[in-house]
């Protein structure tokens, strides 16, 4: 078993990469790897409640994210500053997250076998 950290910087819908990264997350979880996610920059938008992907003919990204704990993926971290810059609070998000400052992220990232940034 290896530990994976996915650093998600892209918003959903405008670019399919955010969705395809979730496919990678689920694949790693399906192979019983230890998976954590860190959302920063525009990646924090992926966690927003009440998304309506169908309005742009897309699957609802928020629904996919909120199902992550069903696949044993529940270690979610978010950059505090990215949230503040975008006027978001933890209550606006679809799952419980741990807010991190840069020093907190630096400490977090050291502990993983594989870190992938998107």
């Amino acid at each position, binding site marked *: 078993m*290896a530990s*994976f950290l996915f650093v998600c910087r892209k918003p959903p819908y405008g*670019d*399919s*990469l955010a969705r*395809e990264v979730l*496919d*990678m997350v689920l*694949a*790693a979880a399906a*192979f019983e*790897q230890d998976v954590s996610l860190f959302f920063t920059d525009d990646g924090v938008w992926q966690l927003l409640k009440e998304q309506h992907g169908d309005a742009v003919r897309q699957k609802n990204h928020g629904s996919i994210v909120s199902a992550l704990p069903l696949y044993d993926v529940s270690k979610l971290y978010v950059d505090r500053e990215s949230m503040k810059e975008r006027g978001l609070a933890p209550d606006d998000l679809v799952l419980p997250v741990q807010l991190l400052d840069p020093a907190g992220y630096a400490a977090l990232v050291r502990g993983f*076998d*594989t870190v*992938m*940034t*998107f």
Partner: protein
Amino acid sequence: MKFSIIVLGSPYSRQSVISAYRFAEAVLDRGHSLYRVFFYHDAVHCGSALSQPPQDEMSIPEHWADLGRTHGLDLVVCIGSALKRGIVDETEADRYEKPAANLRDGFAISGLGQWVDACIESDRVVTFGA
């Protein structure tokens, strides 16, 4: 050291694809091993047999295929990303009754399990972004 590389960008749209190729060359030149190159997202187009760049530009798919042949590399195109973008091998073309197959020789279509395996088996995994 054992490396694996993940490529995400579209060839000819993103410089990162050429950066990935140059990095692969450097890894091999330095005597390290390259366990797998996994083409995901738009990078599946690197596996197209149909790409025809202008004469005075490098053929990115051909360069990857040649590097693969020379060094016995495992060049894997992700099936999920590939199918929706119209990169298919004979098996998938038959399965979905497509008029043609277009996967370049030297590439294999497979799933995200190959990427997970590459991350577990490699000392370093380097991602070249979209």
